[in-house]
């Protein structure tokens, strides 16, 4: 574990395919096999052997926790940018279902740029 990871209490979640993962990354969610069994539990710090297992067992993607080193101002700017993008793509005439989807996606994107503790 790097010094930054050891000191960090808040993280950003990122979704990666196994080819993009590198040694030292921390899993944010359990990695499960297609039959539901846990291959690697949340919190595991990836080592070389785990990377081989991820690729070899046909895991499609993983969720990792990246230390959040942003200032509060930078975090707010990211949140504003995410919301603006969602509002932009939902411009124009709408319907009840489209409005519901707009709110769901906005909340999802906002959560994505917000820090979370590892235990969440």
């Amino acid at each position: 574990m790097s010094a930054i990871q050891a000191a960090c209490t808040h993280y950003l979640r990122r979704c990666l395919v196994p080819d993009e993962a590198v040694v030292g990354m921390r899993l944010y969610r359990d990695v499960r096999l297609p039959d539901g069994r846990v291959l690697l539990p949340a919190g595991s710090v990836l080592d070389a052997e785990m990377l081989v297992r991820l690729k070899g067992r046909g895991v499609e993607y993983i969720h990792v926790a990246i230390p959040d080193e942003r200032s509060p101002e930078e975090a707010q700017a990211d949140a504003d940018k995410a919301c603006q993008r969602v509002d932009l793509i939902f411009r124009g005439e709408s319907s009840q279902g489209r409005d519901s989807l707009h709110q769901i996606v906005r909340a999802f994107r906002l959560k994505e740029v917000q820090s979370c503790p590892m235990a969440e």
Partner: protein
Amino acid sequence: MSHGRVAEIAAQADRLPSLPAVVSRLIALMADDRLGIETLAHQVEADPAIVARVLAAANAGAYGSQHISAVTQAVQLLGVDRVRDIAINNALLEVFAVRVPECMSSLWLESLASAVCAEEVAAQLGVNKSIAYVSGLLHDIGKLLLYVVLGEAYEAVLIEHQHGDVPLAELERARLGVDHAAVGAALASAWHLPAVVVDSILGHTDALGPDVVRSEMADVVHIGMVLARALDLAGNPRNRVPQLSDMACLRSGLHWGQCRAALPHIEGRFAHVRSLLRH
């Protein structure tokens, strides 16, 4: 809309790269829910280009010193869904690889994103996931043929659509006398794809043509297409979420609460299917 005009454009299907025969057969097997390990391996073996990609993906998994050289072994290792993704995505990527103007540059990624979302919607509704995936991949294939046949006249319609509020299919009918859904369905029919795929292409748009009634699979593809655009998966700078049919949502019985929980999975799966194209 003129059916003669649709037929006239669909008759020029040979101006697009042809769909490999093995892909048509795979889709037919999927429609009948008959795609198992042995059947899939047998079909894949008929196409050397697909064999090479499947074996490369199996060996990329780094299974110690084991080298995979048999297709059946590769299918067992990778699973039916993953081999299906490799075979169909790569074959369709070649069909989509025609030169298109900048306003159509996101067409392939938007189709791939719609496939992943339609598959997830189908999974939640308990309908055929594989057919939803393929129908999502092909739902906008009519745009490609319209451009290949009509060139700048179609490009002008796409640009007008980007700057206005009229749904694309409605604008296409007003300007060209045909829409991409009808042309895409005629093309799928010419490729001998199953009726469930043809009907879902015909009924996917946010502005249905006259006399078109959405099938159950068309509802799934329509919702999947809107969800893909809502998640902005293709990263198109000019993206705008199409109209979502309240009737399609109601008829399908989809719960948005379930969809919300599936969003991280959709993003992960999209990243995965994109990565398969590198093999």
